[in-house]
């Protein structure tokens, strides 16, 4: 199985969780990593904050920006972030489950385009966003990873994801980045080289 993209969704407690995951990704991580962290409409500094904790270059994509490997992308505040064949697309459609950005919107669009080549990761969060999206990733043959609800800052999102679909791995937070590193270490980076 070859993977082409990692999508991560998180909400309450996500800031701390991402501070564990992002620094532990391999410096030569071969895939793009796309994150929805639920955030307020005036959370202007989140990108800068996470950048300081990321092993890989991290940015908020502009509309229609190409998706590059070995980079981390953070959904900007007050937009949905969608994946298309030739890059990112943004949308100001209504919030989904009170969330904009919404994890489900990102995950579902990733499954549509990348089919079985998606790895979906659901981390801590106090709602159920991501469950429907992860089920769609699974239905398209992708790989589903969920933070162990027992140790999560908030068990809501991980538990909802586990309830929604037979996930491939339930892991304590510190093991998630090593798992992704292992999973993707043989992925051909040249696939994306421009």
């Amino acid at each position: 199985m070859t993977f082409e993209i990692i999508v991560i969704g998180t909400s309450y407690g996500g800031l701390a969780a991402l501070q564990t995951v992002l620094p532990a990704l391999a410096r030569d991580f071969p895939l793009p990593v796309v994150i929805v962290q639920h955030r307020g409409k005036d959370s202007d500094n989140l990108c800068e904050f996470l950048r300081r904790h990321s092993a890989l270059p991290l940015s908020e994509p502009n509309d229609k920006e190409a998706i590059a490997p070995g980079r981390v992308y953070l959904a900007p505040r007050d937009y949905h972030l969608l994946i298309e064949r030739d890059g990112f697309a943004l949308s100001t459609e209504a919030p989904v489950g009170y969330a904009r950005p919404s994890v489900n919107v990102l995950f579902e669009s990733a499954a549509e385009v990348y089919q079985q080549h998606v790895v979906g990761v659901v981390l801590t969060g106090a709602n159920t966003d991501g469950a429907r999206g992860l089920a769609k990733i699974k239905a398209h043959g992708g790989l589903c990873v969920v933070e162990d609800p027992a140790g999560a800052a908030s068990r809501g999102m991980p538990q909802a994801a586990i309830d929604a679909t037979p996930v491939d791995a339930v892991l304590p937070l510190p093991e998630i980045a090593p798992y992704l590193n292992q999973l993707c270490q043989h992925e051909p980076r040249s696939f994306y080289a421009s």
Partner: protein
Amino acid sequence: MSALVQSDQTQLEDIEIALLLEGLYRVYGFDFRDYSPASIKRRILERMRAEKITTVSAYQDCVLHDNACMERLLVGLSVHVTSMFRDPSFYLTFRRKVVPVLRTYPTVRIWHAGCSTGEEVYSMAILLQEEGLYRKSVIYATDISRDVLRKAREGIFPLAAMQEYTGNYMRAGGKHEFSDYYTAHYDNVIFHPALKTNVVFSEHNLVTDGSFNEFHVILCRNVMIYFNKALQERVHNLIYESLSMFGVFGLGNKESLKFTPRADFYEKLDGHDKLYRKVK
């Protein structure tokens, strides 16, 4: 269901959606064929769920034969949800960098392209009034959808949103009490009709219609994100042609002029806030 079957189904759905959009264009004249595919697919599937229809082909039958069904689709495809003084720093920069230039003009023509339900139109009207420019200004507020224009014209918004809007207004450099501009009525507020005396609400389709005037300011924020690159290029050309020399063009926070055919014809007024001045 196996992965292979799912991927086949995705492909089939994409074909069906292309056929539906082709039909919508040829029967009704609404051209969504060059819209950004991920979001348009989402919205079509959402409409289908609401209509309790399971295949896009069956939905096409409904849309092409039933005018009311088509109208509902049109509303579903056209609405995006914005707020007053969205991205307050955009309006703050507008006050500081654009208003002083507009003061020197005898009249000011502004085009708000893709105004949706009007939140950002009323924001601009308030800003212009506070800067003493409103009386000599005309705002042309256009959208493809008759339905959202009707709402924009009413100027009625939910009371629950006012707390957020008040915060935005203050950060946007607001000079009065935000509540001076509306009257509350049960769960809604109505904005003072004086704010729309110089606003012309009108149907205009960025995909198929041409330029209709020359403007000093054109705002087209978070509208082209729904278009694919080819259509974005067309609209960038249309906006360029509709803007007077040294006119100002405002985009959404995550939109960029980079890589568009007109990029070299503008200079940045303020890099962060997506305000540009036409210089060629």
